[in-house]
């Protein structure tokens, strides 16, 4: 067996391990092993590449590997679970950036023939990779809530400018694909796609971030696949398309969970309906309650459902929630969690936080399942969630969230909403749930409120 065959077989083995690795993620029990299989596949692919005959010097490779491994390990071990969306955004970006550079290096090394598929793929890598890199960095800055990025930068003609940039990039690609010797064209495309990445992500924020992150995840995969076409390398194509498919599926799930199309999320602006009821009218009958009053509810309760939202992550309340969960369970009350697919800032965000707080995953219920048992629930606690429990989604067809599947906490006997104020959620509309007859508002910081509640229950 010659060296080429060994390398190709190693890549095949790596691809199989990637597929088995993702397959492992279909259950929490097998997930750790799945991830390790994926890592093993990557190790095999890297070692196989290192024996490739075209490599003549190793010092730059080793330098790059060591620097990257140290940075990656520090990031992975230091990051807080609440900051996971930022972390994933950043990693997406690096993947895209690597694709741009690899395709660029290939072009400088051995310019492919004009109009060849390798050249087309090179330019595809430039566009997808650069959009992914800069889009992800901006998404990272938004999620970190850096001051300058809290609000989108406003300028007129948002979509026309994007269209012009897109067409310009496309035109340069077409010229570049005919003229491989002009490498400057490649970097021109990279520059325009970089700006496009920023202008595309700039207007999106808040509760729409899960869609953006999932989409950028998909792009990072597609960028890798495009680079695979450049190099004619099957393992890149296979892994890239796996990741591309994964990102698209997640994007789709997120959009469905908001009853909005992807175009609407990416290019539309959520606007409150002018004719909608005034906030003051909606909130006329709001009833506030203190921890002691709420604690009494649990004397007779048999089932409690907790619905967490982004507010729980902001308040870092997950450990306090775990203590409340344990206290209630110790008194024979069944406690379940209702997780909306778009709660938080990325797919599965709430699940990771609750897992960090050691709440068993079989207590976390999906939308349909939790809705079917909410009518037989004594107390529903809404913790830092708003739009995902807003009944207007069902009742008001003109509402910007009309048709969005919600967690129907209003079906529970009593609803406790823990929230700092009556301020609206991302959709910027009032929530009639807060003024419902069976709702008690507990105005406080999420963590503080849960701790007070625990103390009050222990006393009563």
């Amino acid at each position, binding site marked *: 067996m010659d060296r*080429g*065959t060994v390398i190709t*077989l190693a890549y095949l083995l*790596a691809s199989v391990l990637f*597929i088995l*690795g*993702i397959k492992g*993620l279909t*259950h*929490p*029990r097998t*997930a750790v092993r799945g*991830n390790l299989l994926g*890592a093993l596949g*990557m190790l095999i*692919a*890297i070692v196989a590449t290192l024996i490739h005959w075209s*490599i003549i010097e190793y010092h*730059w490779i080793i330098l790059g590997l060591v620097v*990257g491994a140290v*940075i*990656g390990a520090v990031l*992975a071990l230091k990051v807080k*679970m609440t900051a*996971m969306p930022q*972390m994933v955004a950043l*990693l997406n970006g*690096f*993947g895209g950036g*690597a*694709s741009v*550079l*690899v395709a660029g*290096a290939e072009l*400088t*090394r051995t310019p*492919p023939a004009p109009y060849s*598929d390798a050249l087309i793929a090179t330019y595809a890598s430039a566009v997808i990779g650069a959009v992914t890199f800069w889009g992800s960095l901006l998404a990272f800055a938004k999620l970190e809530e850096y001051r300058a990025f809290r609000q989108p930068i406003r300028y007129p003609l948002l979509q026309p400018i994007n269209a012009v940039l897109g067409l310009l990039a496309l035109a340069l690609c077409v010229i570049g694909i005919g003229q491989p010797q002009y490498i400057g064209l490649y970097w021109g495309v990279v520059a325009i796609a970089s700006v496009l990445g920023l202008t595309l992500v700039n207007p999106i924020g808040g509760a729409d971030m899960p869609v953006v992150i999932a989409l950028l995840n998909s792009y*990072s995969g597609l960028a*890798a696949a495009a680079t*695979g*076409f450049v*190099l*004619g*390398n099957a393992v*890149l*194509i296979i*892994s890239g398309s796996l*990741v*591309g*498919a*994964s990102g698209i599926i*997640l994007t789709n799930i997120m959009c469905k969970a908001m009853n909005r199309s992807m175009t609407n999320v990416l290019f539309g602006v959520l606007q409150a309906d002018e004719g909608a009821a005034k906030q003051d009218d909606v909130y006329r009958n709001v009833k506030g309650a203190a921890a002691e009053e709420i604690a009494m509810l649990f004397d007779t309760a048999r089932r409690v459902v907790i619905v967490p939202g982004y507010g729980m992550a902001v308040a870092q309340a997950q450990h306090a929630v775990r203590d409340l969960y344990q206290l209630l369970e110790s008194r024979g009350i069944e406690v379940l969690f209702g997780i909306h697919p778009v709660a938080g800032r990325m*797919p*599965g*965000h709430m*699940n*990771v936080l609750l897992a*960090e707080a050691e709440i068993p995953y079989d207590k976390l219920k*999906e939308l349909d399942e939790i809705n079917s048992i909410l009518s037989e629930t004594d107390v529903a606690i809404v913790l830092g969630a708003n739009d995902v429990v807003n009944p207007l989604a069902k009742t008001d067809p003109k509402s910007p969230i009309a048709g969005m599947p919600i967690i129907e906490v209003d079906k529970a006997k009593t609803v406790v909403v823990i929230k700092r104020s009556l301020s609206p959620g991302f959709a910027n509309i009032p929530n009639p749930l807060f003024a419902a007859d069976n709702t008690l508002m507990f105005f406080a910081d999420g963590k503080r409120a849960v701790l007070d509640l625990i103390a009050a229950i222990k006393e009563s």
Partner: protein
Amino acid sequence: MLNNCFLLAEQINEVAEVTQGSQLPLALALTIFVLAIFVGFEIITKVPPTLHTPLMSGSNAISGITIVGAIIAAGAGHSGLATLLGTIAVVLATINVVGGFLVTNRMLHMFKRKS
């Protein structure tokens, strides 16, 4: 089964030697691309929502496979520019790979205990 894989690899390799620069002819590359997308859709739709965050970070680490191209670009000893680009690409892709797999591992251990 293994024999077939071996034969396929041999064939791909022969094609690679004939076509030199680009190792895979377009039709074959597209075949692989489309089939892999189907495989992806089949398995990923079965991942439960609880594991969507680890799925993103884990699949993200897998997309760091660009490291394979980066290593060759950095080590093939062509122009200084190609080597520089390759080296930066190795750094970025390694952060992607190491960071992605490690952070996924950290998260998944949280799901594993207590359940």
